[in-house]
C-alpha cells in the first residue's frame, strides 16, 4: 500500500493531491506503508443504498500506523465484531475495473 509523501516536510497524507496539505510543497512522491492500522470509527449500514453494496456492511475511518486516515470497509468478520481501536490490515480486492483497499481484522495480535 502506498501514500503520498512530501519531500520537503516529510508529511504523509491521503488522498493524493497537487501539493502537500501541510507546507504546500509540490515535491511529492509515493511512499510504501505497512498497510496496518486501526479502526478510528465505523458505521454499520443496515439499509442498501446501491445494489453493488448490499446491507449489512461496515464503512470505517481507518487510521494507518504511519498516520494518514482513509475511508474504507472492514471485511472478513461480522459487522457485530467490528470495534473502535481494532487492529486491521489492508486487503486489496478487485471490484470491476477498480482495485479497492479494504481492511480485515489483524489477528494474532501483532502490530509491527
Amino acid at each position, binding site marked *: 500500500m502506498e501514500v503520498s509523501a512530501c519531500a520537503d516536510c516529510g508529511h504523509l*497524507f491521503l*488522498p493524493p493531491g497537487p501539493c502537500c*496539505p501541510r507546507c504546500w510543497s509540490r515535491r511529492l512522491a509515493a511512499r510504501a506503508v505497512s498497510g496496518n492500522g486501526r479502526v*478510528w*470509527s*465505523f*458505521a*454499520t*449500514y*443496515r*439499509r442498501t*443504498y*446501491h445494489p*453493488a*453494496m448490499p446491507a449489512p*456492511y461496515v*464503512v470505517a*475511518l481507518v487510521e494507518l500506523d504511519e498516520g*494518514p*486516515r*482513509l*475511508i*474504507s*470497509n472492514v471485511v472478513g468478520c461480522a459487522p457485530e465484531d467490528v470495534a*473502535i481501536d481494532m487492529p486491521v490490515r489492508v486487503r486489496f480486492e478487485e*471490484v470491476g475495473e*477498480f482495485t*479497492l483497499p*479494504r481492511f480485515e481484522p489483524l489477528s494474532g495480535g501483532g502490530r509491527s
Partner: protein
Amino acid sequence: MSRRAVIAGVGHTAFGKFPDRTAWDLEAEAAAAAVADAGLRPADVDGLLTDPGAVQGILDGITPHFLRLGAQLGLDPTYTGSEILGGAGSVAIVERAALAVEAGLCEACLCVYGDSALSGADAYGYGRGDEAAFGFFGAAGLHALAARRHMHRYGTRPEHLGEVAVAARAYAARVPHAQKRGALGMDEYLASDPIVEPLRRLDCCLVSDGAAAVVVTTAERAAGSRRPAIPILGHAQAHSLSTYASPDHFDALPASRSGPEAFGRAGVAPADVDVALLYDCFTIVVLLQLEDYGFCEKGEAGPFVEGGRIGPGGSLPVNTSGGLLAEGYGGGMLHVIEAVRQLRGDAGDRQVADAEVALVSGHGLGMNTHATLVLGV
C-alpha cells in the same frame, strides 16, 4: 459609528411534499412574505443572497442560483451571490448579509433558502468521490461515524440521542405548520429502524419541499417593519475543510471556533442564551454543538440532555419549532426565523418566557462548514 444589522422581516412557505410546485415558485412566495413582513417594497431590496439547497445548488448548479432567482424577482442589487455550504448555507448567507449591511454595501438584503428535495428524487443519496466505491453514501454515514465515536469515548447512550428527537417532536406538536406533529415517546424512538448504526430512522431529519426567507437591514431602515426588528448582535463562520486529516474531525465541530467569535462580538456567554436553534440534520449534531458552543463540557452532552432539559419546560430550550427533525427541512433558515419569532414574543404556546438572547447555528457538507448567529433584544 458602525451600523447594526437587524432582521426586519421573515417569511416561509408550508413545508412538506408539493410535487406540483417548483422551488422557484416556493422561493418567490417566501421572498414576498419576508419583504412584506419587513414593511418594505420589492424596489427597496438592494441585496440578494441565496442558499439553493441540494437539488438546485448541487444537482442543477449550472446557472448561478442568485442570477435566475434575481431575474424572476426583477432585482438589480448592489450585492449578491449564492452559497453552496450545505446545511450551513442559510445561516451563512444571513451572516454575510449582516456583514454587507454593516459595511454599507447594501441597505436591505433579502436572504432566501428554497428546495424541492422531497419531490426531487435522490437528492441525498450522493457519494463523495472515491468514497462511494466503499458504500459511503449519504450524510447519515458521516454522522454515524461521529455518533459511534462519541458513544465509544464518552459513554453516550442511544437514549441521549433519543432525548433530542423526543424534544423536537414535543415542540413541533405546538407548531401549526410543522411537517411532523405527532408526539414521540422514547420507546418508539428506540424501536425505530436502524439506518446506519448507531443512527436510527428517527435520528435523521426530514426531507422537505419548501422555502424560507429573511430580510437583513439597518435599524433605521426597519422602522417601518410591521413586527419588531431583531438585532444581529454577533456572527461568525468557521470551517473544517481538511476533514479526516484533522485529529479531532468527528470529535469536535468548527462551532468550537465560530461560537466564541460570535459570542465575543455579541458580548454574551452561553449562560446568557435563552433559546438555542441548533442545526439538527442528525440528533448527534445537537449533542456535539451543546459541547462545542460551551453549554456543557466536552463529552457531557448525553447527561446534559437527560430528563427533558432541552424540551418544553426544560432549562435550555433547543429547537423550539421542532427543527429539521420535525418542523421541516428549511436549510437552517427556519431556525433563523424561529429565533426571530421567539425574540419578538411571537411564538405562541411554545414561547420561551422573557427570551432576550438566541443562538442560531448552521452545519453542513458532512461536518465541514459552520456558521453562527447571536440575536438579541
